[in-house]
């Protein structure tokens, strides 16, 4: 699992969004793949935004796809945008811009056969959307919530993947329920018996799992920021978004 990308050959490690921002308009393969990965990870919040704006499922899919086609060409990167520091804000800002100004033009371009796609499971997207809270949320708020949930889900998956690669899948599956400490009906003792571990060893393992989740979460957030120093602020922002 790659959490950082090296550019300039100088050993300068930085995060995805900063790679993209640094690369700017230049055609850097690292930046292109970093951007594509970000888009693949965070398309759903845009889809949910479009749906909440009243677009049908099929149109939301089209719009999101067409937007990415334009976005991946980095057309928006030259625009003066105070939100550039955060991929989240930049993405939504660009999407709004796209919806307001460029949708029709891009559709014409699509007919001409020129488009790039980010693949996803559309059925799943709609099933997911159908479980979003009812209409009281604004599209912006829904976007932010969906963003936070996508992010948290992503990190959980990465954590699971990491355990699977280290052949600790069984441990992850047994301990995962305790990661937030809220599903307290499962006791450490019961899990210990299942895994053939002492209760204190289970506690230790859960504590490590939480710590690792925290690290990976910060890492994941850092990938969406140009300045990793803003992680705390972003965490706070997402916490509010979930209210």
């Amino acid at each position: 699992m790659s959490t950082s990308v090296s550019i300039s050959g100088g050993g300068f490690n930085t995060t995805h969004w900063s790679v993209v921002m640094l690369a700017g308009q230049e055609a850097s393969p690292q930046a292109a793949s970093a951007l594509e990965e970000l888009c693949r990870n965070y398309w759903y919040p845009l889809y949910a935004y479009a749906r909440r704006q009243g677009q049908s499922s099929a149109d939301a899919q089209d719009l999101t796809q067409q937007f990415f086609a334009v976005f991946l060409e980095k057309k928006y990167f030259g625009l003066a945008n105070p939100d550039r520091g955060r991929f989240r804000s930049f993405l939504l800002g660009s999407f709004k811009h796209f919806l307001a100004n460029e949708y029709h033009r891009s559709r014409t371009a699509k007919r001409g056969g020129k488009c790039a796609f980010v693949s996803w499971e559309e059925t799943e997207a709609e099933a997911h959307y159908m479980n979003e809270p009812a209409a009281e949320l604004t599209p912006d708020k829904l976007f932010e919530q969906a963003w936070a949930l996508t992010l948290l889900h992503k990190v959980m998956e990465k954590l699971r993947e990491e355990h699977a690669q280290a052949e600790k899948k069984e441990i992850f599956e047994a301990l995962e329920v305790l990661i937030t400490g809220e599903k307290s009906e499962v006791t450490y003792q019961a899990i210990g018996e299942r895994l053939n571990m002492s209760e204190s060893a289970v506690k230790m393992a859960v504590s490590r799992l939480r710590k690792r989740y925290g690290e990976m979460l910060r890492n994941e957030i850092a990938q969406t920021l140009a300045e990793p120093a803003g992680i705390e602020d972003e965490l706070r922002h997402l916490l509010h978004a979930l209210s």
Partner: protein
Amino acid sequence: MSAARKCRGCGTDVPSNAPFGHCPKCLLELGFGPVPERMDAPPLLLAKGGERPFGDYYLLDQIGRGGMGVIYKARQVTLNRRVAIKLVRPDELPSATLIQRFHLEAEAAASLHHPNIVPIYETGEHEGQHFFSMELIDGKGLDRYITNGGFAFGEEKSPRSRNEQIARIMAKVARAVDYAHQHGVLHRDLKPSNILLDAQCEPHLTDFGVAKVTGRPGSSLTASGAIMGTPSYMAPEQAVGKTKRVTTAADTYSLGAILYEMLIGHPPFRGDTPVETLKQVVEEEPRHPSTLKDSIDRDLATICMKCLEKEPQRRYASAAALAEDLERWLRHEPILARPIGPLGRMGRWCRREPTLAGLAAGIGVCLVAIAVVALAAYRNAEASRQQLQSVTDELIQDQLNQLDNFWTNSTDISITIPSERLARLTSRPPRQAGTRVTFGVYTHTSPSDMLTRFAPFISFLETNTAGPIPLRIDFVIYRHYSDAVQALAEGRLGFMRPGPGAYIRARQRNPGLLVLAKQLHNGQPIIYGVIFTRADSGIVDLKKDIGGKSVASADDDSTFGNYVPKAYFREQGIHMRDLPKWKYVGAHDETVKQVLRGPMTSELQTRMWLRGLCPKRTSR
């Protein structure tokens, strides 16, 4: 949307699409690590220990938390005093209503100056965080002194002196509550944990979190009909969510419930679930304390039972009247409350069982007096039924939650809810006969969500297909879209309503499936109403009923959206028999009329196209 469960960690709602089912807020908190890097930042979720500067205060330990806020022990720097400080949970900040309620609590309590009410010092906002500070009571909640044997404080006492201690505490609390009532404040959540006892066993009333300031518009900031308070101590009129009927008498009831618990060791009603408790509060009479414990003082039990009367007007006229009766008992004077005699008990039975009572009266077994009571009870029956409806709603919600839990824990590919069960869920009699057809949907996460959305739709179909063959529609919820499509293709499913947007894929996979209708609004596809059936669906009996051209379409926003296209066709003078390929069903005249005069009329603007019928829109 199914009801979210509460996180046991932070108490907030966990959405049904939470990552791996975990509370998202608690997951996010893991990102902060054990020590926040910015010490000047507002505390997050306020769960961490350690001294933390907060304006003029230093927050010390967390000493309590409620639905709205977290209470800290704190030190006020300028006045060098210890205080208790309550902060709105930061995750709740965006709700203006909540902040208003929070300040209302502060305001309600701040207007009260009584030795047995915890005084408010200051209310305000610091760095976006709303708070108020109050006197720090060095003591514990009354609930901490109640065991199975009842209330016990300090050294062991004789039954009489223990009872005197109970009466003295409750008389003071009742006086404090009456004082609040005199100042226009209803507490509405009186319970042992909201009464703090200091080292001298002096009670201090706190937590006006769900208080209501009477006589001021907008002062009741609870959602309409929402049940506020704690079930075991809640008056019946409060339990059925009739907030407008909640008066000072509801607080008197709660005082009675607290007195009951202090005498017996448990509150008058306690079910396995809050809903069960609420049901008992509304429907059952409390057991008389003397039937539960031999040593109970008869007069104290009588006082207690008078507070617990189901009808507010039969309780003490005020909390002060309760206090006076308790004080009379303390002075060894006769109390004013009277125990309930046999006639009174019969009257109560009549009110609970109006039908039986009426029957009994009708065959002349009972006294004439009882018949009169029964007649009055009949008149009240409708009102009681309505009150019970909200409790029933809660019970249904409970069943829905069970359904979701089952879904989460099982590996079955589908779950079928038969027509009869659906009928019960929508409170109508089940169909005794009729052709069974199946209607399928799919959901990964929440079958209860699907059920609540589609149950009215299916009910409507069942009760409005008035042709020669009545329908009984079994509702099948699939876990996976592909299984549902497969079932449809194989004829195990009569109809299916897939998630909007999935239809293209489905058609690619199975050309035998037909998309029958798609709605547009002002030319914009804001609503998709799509229902699949097979061209050769082979639903023979249905054919007789609705012409064999089975179609129904539902949209995201309206259960009855599927009737709009039918009405539209009527308006356009299109006869269903003329449709060459797309077998659109002709609606029953009555249905169309209903649509035309019903709430959907505005949506008759809805334009729709059917491929092969109207010109296909080229822009799509």
